[in-house]
């Protein structure tokens, strides 16, 4: 499986690249951008949760930090948003290292780790909600100035290319994990931490690296959100919606492989659109659907969509072999 994923990834990226030239409507472009965006967010979570086996329920802590980093820099300090992008990744990564350092140093695993991440996200939300620099409860509005130098694009295709590049980045990292010593060690720690340690793997360092990487990428997703929607507030930044989406996407698509998150994101987006068409645009409805999908997947398809794809592919090979 890892051997063929490189070609598959390149194929997917190649197919996605010319999309803006084929699709003219803003509606479909928006859908495409959101799909890639959620796919990227999910891929970031996948690094820690899928490959690393550490389930974070509070990835919003990284997302929000990245989002606020770039928003505050632009709104309060007038800094260039491209720089804000870099800052977002750095700050979010630092938060990841902090949370990871504390949690893994104290041997938190499984549910306890999930709880701690949840608590941290909530702490950040309260802080963002309290202080003026982040706009407290009202949040921050990034002023409209649509030039590429200001990381805002008049045409959707501009944003699309950025998120495509980010997606490619995410794939690159996932591919590297599947083909490197670091990645092999990360997966080993996921499967059996003590056995890995007995084989010379510094489990703490490996997990720390994974969460820092995951956090940095998630921070980039946050920064992208701010550039695309030009608004951020504590609930969007640090609330449960982001944390849930981040984990739902790879779980639906398939954990621990590079293409799973994108698959999951597209599936969920399609589901969302179908739901909207069928039941209208009521608040909360799409999340209900997501919740139902999550529970249903856990009951009937615990390996995600990719799991089905893989097992059908295997069956195919066995027939021809």
């Amino acid at each position: 499986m890892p051997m063929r994923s490189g070609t598959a990834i390149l194929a997917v990226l190649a197919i996605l690249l010319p999309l803006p030239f084929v699709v003219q409507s803003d509606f479909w472009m928006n859908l495409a951008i959101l799909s890639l965006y959620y796919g990227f967010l999910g891929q970031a979570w996948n690094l820690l949760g899928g490959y690393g086996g550490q389930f974070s329920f509070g990835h919003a802590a990284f997302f929000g930090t990245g989002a606020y980093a770039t928003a505050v820099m632009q709104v309060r300090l007038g800094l260039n948003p491209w720089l804000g992008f870099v800052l977002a990744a750095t700050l979010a990564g630092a938060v990841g290292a902090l949370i990871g350092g504390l949690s893994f140093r104290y041997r938190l695993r499984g549910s306890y780790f999930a709880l701690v991440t949840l608590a941290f996200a909530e702490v950040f939300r309260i802080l963002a909600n309290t202080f003026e620099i982040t706009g407290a409860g009202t949040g921050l509005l990034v002023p409209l100035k649509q030039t590429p130098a200001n990381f805002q694009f008049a045409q959707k295709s501009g944003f699309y290319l950025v998120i495509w590049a980010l997606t490619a980045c995410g794939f690159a990292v996932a591919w590297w994990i599947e083909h490197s010593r670091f990645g092999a060690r990360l997966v080993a720690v996921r499967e059996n931490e003590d056995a890995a340690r007995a084989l010379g793997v510094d489990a703490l360092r490996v997990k720390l690296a994974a969460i820092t990487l995951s956090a940095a990428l998630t921070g980039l997703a946050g920064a992208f959100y701010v550039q695309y929607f030009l608004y951020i507030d504590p609930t969007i930044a640090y609330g449960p919606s982001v944390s849930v989406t981040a984990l739902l996407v790879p779980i639906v698509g398939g954990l621990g492989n590079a293409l799973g998150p994108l698959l999951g994101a597209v599936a969920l987006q399609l589901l969302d659109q179908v739901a909207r068409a069928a039941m209208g645009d009521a608040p909360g409805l799409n999340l209900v659907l997501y919740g139902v999908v999550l529970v249903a997947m856990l009951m009937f398809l615990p390996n995600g969509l990719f799991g089905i794809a893989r097992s059908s592919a295997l069956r195919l090979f066995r027939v021809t072999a």
Partner: protein
Amino acid sequence: MVELSILVPAILNGITTGAVYALIALGLTLIYGVLHIINFAHGSLLMLALYGVYFLYALFGIDPYLAFPVIVPAMFGLGYALQRFVIARTSHGRDENVLLATLGLSIIIENLALYLWSADTRTVSTPYGFSTVDLGLALIAVPKVVAFFGALIVTGALWLFMRRTDLGKAIRAVARERDGARLVGIDVDHVFAMSFGIGIACLGAAACLLLPSFYANPMVGHGFVLIAFTVVVLGGMGSFPGALLGGLLIGVTESVGGLFLGESLGQIGIFIVFIAILLFRPTGLFGQQA
């Protein structure tokens, strides 16, 4: 220095709130102690119960305290069904799956509430809602005093149930030694579902006690989840006295924290405590090894 006349009411209020937190946490710790599940849906189920109490009041004029005989069995039934027919089927032998399943349930319940009942906050106005009890150093609202004693009574009843009844003993047996219990003929799946049901029934009781001095809206569950976890982790997973003591401590922490840091920031105190315990003493005050 803070005046006693401000501090004492804060502490007393904290204790009354804490008792209700304890009741909520009791359900959570029971579920963890027996099923080893961290029930992420606990907060949203409490929210559901609050709405239940609210609608009984709004549609049928039933006073929240009198809603006990309806709400508690209803929540029990819901909890039983959820465990038996949904959660148990998601496990496939992996703990993470159950974790995610309860998370998924919480998403469904919260957003269903949002969709059905909108984000409006619902409150009840009862004749005693604004009365207070004079304790000398402080005036405490009647609903809070009732909540305090109500929570203690329910906790005591639950404790008696666990000690004296056959089912209670079966539950404790399963909690301690699942396979051994199965070997002596205890229907473990049924006991799991019963335990979950009882844990959720606690939420029903808590909702009846809570609504007169609180409110219902789709997002309240979220706030309670973390507080309940903090209480359980502080008191020790699976420990009843721990949940009680933890609840009181957290209630006071929140109240006094709010006094010094303001409403919004005051909540941070709880989460800092939570994170600190998870890191430095994850077994809590009374808990067994995690």
